[in-house]
């Protein structure tokens, strides 16, 4: 893990003001083109989904099965990532369209929007990479930072990370229930049960749709349609898992201790968001298919700016980081994924012990990395 990065002297407040300026500029320039972007994307995604399902219903032809499954997988990825995730962040609330609004949106995944918005928007985006606060660090199940205590169960984490990738949507739905906080009483058992019922209700509808209703409608093609839907869901799960793990767990992403976030200023919050996030380099297709989480840094600095704008501000953010001597962590999808898996494998075993040299002095901003 990168170390002395945040130990440099940083005028966090000036850095924050520059970022605020970028943010204000983007907000002032939002307009018809942005509205057209999201509306066209939603329409395209829905047509793609219909197209995929129609092709699957003609899947006695093997190419139709493959094309239908691919179309459905792409539609589900777009729906979850570039559309759902970003709408639920309130990125499109400025349009005041009740159909594309964070308070009315529901997405095609096991996790009910309301619960996810709490665990993701509130907990993760506020406490990004703060140990003991950000539950997204290893999703309460994995050891992705040497700072986390090692337990023997972590020996199996490479194995259950594969399972998590395959069944990611269910993992997230269960994760949102915060079950690990029940024994300590931090979370009310009754509240968790109520939430569990909501999750079960949603999963039931999702499962019936993809594995009962559409296959039944296909009559003799029940099995190919079921397998097509299953493949599309698995593809989406594996892809979402890969992209999301690349956001905060590759080398370069830093972790923070709770006491260091006490009394954090806006500027320091910006610095922490930057240091805790990693980008993925790639072309427009990668950005679109990752829901622009390939611009994880920009997303964490400005979670409620429309995602179609992250690409245009990324060079400015990068230049700003250079000016302030802050690291801007970015790498190819292969490199970042490799880095994540290396860490998952290495940290399955105890250690490594932290080197004294890495316990760098805190920067003036009050932030301390503990890599």
């Amino acid at each position, binding site marked *: 893990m990168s170390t002395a990065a945040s130990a440099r002297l940083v005028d966090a407040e000036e850095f924050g003001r520059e970022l605020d300026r970028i943010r204000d500029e983007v907000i002032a320039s939002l307009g018809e083109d942005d*509205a057209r972007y999201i509306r066209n994307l939603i329409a395209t995604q*829905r047509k793609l989904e219909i197209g995929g399902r129609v092709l699957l219903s003609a899947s006695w032809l093997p190419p139709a099965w493959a094309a239908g499954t691919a179309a459905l997988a792409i539609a589900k990825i777009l729906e979850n990532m570039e559309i759902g995730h970003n709408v639920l962040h309130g990125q499109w609330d*400025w349009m005041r369209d*009740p159909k594309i609004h964070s308070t009315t949106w*529901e997405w095609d995944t096991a996790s009910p929007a309301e619960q996810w918005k709490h665990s993701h928007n509130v907990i993760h985006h506020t406490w990004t990479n703060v140990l003991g606060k950000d539950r997204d660090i290893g999703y309460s199940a994995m050891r992705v930072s040497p700072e986390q205590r090692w337990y023997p169960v972590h020996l199996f984490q490479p194995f259950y990370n594969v399972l998590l990738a395959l069944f990611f949507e269910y993992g997230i739905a269960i994760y949102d229930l915060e079950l690990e906080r029940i024994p300590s009483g931090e979370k009310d058992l009754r509240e968790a049960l109520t939430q569990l019922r909501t999750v079960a209700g949603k999963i039931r509808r999702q499962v*019936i749709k993809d594995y009962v209703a559409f296959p039944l409608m296909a009559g003799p093609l029940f099995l190919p349609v079921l397998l097509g839907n299953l493949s599309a869901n698995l593809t989406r799960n594996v892809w979402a898992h890969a992209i999301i793990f690349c956001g905060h767990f590759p080398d370069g992403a830093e972790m923070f201790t709770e006491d260091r976030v006490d009394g954090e200023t806006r500027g320091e919050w910006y610095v922490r968001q930057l240091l805790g996030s990693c980008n993925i380099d790639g072309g427009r297709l990668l950005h679109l298919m990752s829901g622009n989480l390939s611009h994880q840094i920009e997303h964490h600095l400005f979670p409620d700016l429309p995602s179609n704008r992250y690409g245009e501000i990324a060079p400015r953010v990068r230049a700003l980081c250079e000016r302030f001597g802050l690291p801007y962590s970015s790498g190819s999808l292969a490199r970042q994924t490799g880095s994540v898996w290396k860490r998952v494998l290495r940290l399955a075993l105890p250690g490594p012990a932290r080197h004294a040299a890495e316990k760098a002095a805190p920067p003036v901003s009050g932030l301390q990395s503990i890599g």
Partner: protein
Amino acid sequence: MSPSHQGYHQPVNALGAVHGPAVMRRLAGAARWLTTPLFPDDYLSLVNPLWSEAELCGRIEAVRPETADAVTVVIRPGVGWKPHRAGQWVGIGVDIAGVRHWRTYSLSSPPGRPDGRVTITVKTVPNGLVSRHLARRTTPGTVVALTGPAGEFVLPEPPPARLLFLTAGSGITPVRAMLYDLLTGPRAHQGTAGRKNIRHSPAHGTEHPGSPDVVLVHSAPTPEQMIFGAELRHLAARFPNLSLHQRHTRIEGRLRPADLTAICPDWAERPAWVCGPRGLLQEAAEHWPADRLHIEHFRAAAQMRVGEGGRVRFTRSGRQIDADENTSLLAAGEDAGVLMPSGCRMGICHGCVVPLVSGRVRDLRSGQAHGEPGDLIQTCVSAAAGPVEIEL
């Protein structure tokens, strides 16, 4: 779906009228299993936004100039549109630079047009974002969001045998709908015989179900600026039971209530429907007994204040915004990106009420501060009187 849309229109599917609502509901329920977590509606509206029953829409089919600064917008309302009564208004949500802006306009067309369309007539307001956009930059084919129709500025059923319309400026728009309804609507056709009787012996008019005896006194600055001027003159020539008095205020001066005696000697015996600028409405309210007077406001009669306002916090969405003393909580919430329920936007329909969590609000009409936690407040006519929390 915005809460403001609920209750305005029954969810009737595109095909509901043909196959019966019960069958359609069952079909829609079954289709929901295929579209979950979305609704069949979300896919239907890909083909045609007008088929959406969750969000009432309309397509603008024509924009016709009426005067130099007024246009009539012809709208084909989508599925779920409930036929209006003459005199009612519609809420129209227009996307400008990607942001939806809501305004209310009186419907200027009578109900039951054979082509299923409705019209609003919009006078451009200087610096008026929506009115100027509708008049100058809206092209046929544009889809707008709709709410309504609603409003109490309507004629009773059956209408009185003699009545008076007193209008000024764009106040003619709901009255135009009423005139056509009275003179050419289904009622008029049923009562052709009655109309003749009314003309000859107005005193016995109450016995006749046909077209009543109508006096319209309409003011506009100049003949050129009179909205529907030529059309009204044509109507008056065609229907003897309509007597039209045009007043060009820049030439003849403003009409005073005292002038009415000369124009319409029996004005005191006629129920009156009055629509126009605030001054006209105030004078009418002083002049008529309340039981005979029906008035329509264009906007909340706000009293401008100096000082106060405050931070408005929306507890459920966690958003907040600073609002001044003359900004309605509705406008403040919309600016903050909160989905605010809304309706008439002038304090009449109660489509915008939400619970107050803490703080006090000031009624923009009366200037009175009020509010206890839990009170349902009308956001469209309430401004913050200090810091306010609203449950939204």
